[in-house]
């Protein structure tokens, strides 16, 4: 189960995720992100309430990062220790901006 909350302020968009980002929920997030990024120059993923991420979720973050590399900045905030470990193991710590 994943809850996705979007908060747009001009060209800045915050997407807050709550729950589990897995094979089941990743396609929904991917569709939401693709539909929302036009004109966005500052994208923030707030993952304070994200409990779980698998490779399907990492793929969506990578897709968003590739898009934002062309049109602005992207940051990821609030990763818990277990999710930080997954970012470390997969090298995502180096390609995402994690705060």
């Amino acid at each position, binding site marked *: 189960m994943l809850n996705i909350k979007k908060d747009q302020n001009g060209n800045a968009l915050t997407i807050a995720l709550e729950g589990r980002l897995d*094979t089941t929920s990743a396609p929904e997030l991917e569709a939401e992100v693709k539909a929302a990024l036009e004109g966005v120059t500052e994208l923030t993923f707030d993952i304070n309430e994200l409990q*779980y991420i698998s490779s399907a979720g990492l*793929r969506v973050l990578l897709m968003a*990062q*590739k898009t934002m*590399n062309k049109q602005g900045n992207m940051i990821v905030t609030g990763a818990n220790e277990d999710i930080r*470990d*997954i970012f470390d193991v*997969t090298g995502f710590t180096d*390609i995402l901006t994690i705060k």
Partner: protein
Amino acid sequence: MKTLCVAAEAGRLDEVLSFIGSCLEGTQCSPKVQMQLDVAVEEMFVNIACYAYEGSSLPDEERNAWIEAGMIDTDGVPCVRVTLKDKGIPYDPLAKEDPDITLSAEDRKVGGLGIFMVKKSMDHVAYEYKEGMNVFTMEKKLS
């Protein structure tokens, strides 16, 4: 060991993870290890669901995945063992080359991360093709 047999469909993932959760009840499994096991089982089950029966002549009702889970003792340390089996085409996921995790976002490929995460997070992984089945086993120490 308990066993679950489900149709090899990604939509059955929640059922598979509930089964793993029920096998861990009453053990001293930390939330971190539980998440690592869930991720590893998700990656391997979804691989079976997406690829194992591609091109297979088996009828739909036989396109299943079997998941066994339980506790074992490894040198006095409690350990969870999970085995996933399918009757699909022989495929050794451990033979796949690891992704280059030093590449930039632009050069990153989207595939191959799942099995890599499994190898990194589990204490032991093994594959064999036995009696017409792919058999993938993983073990994770609880302490």
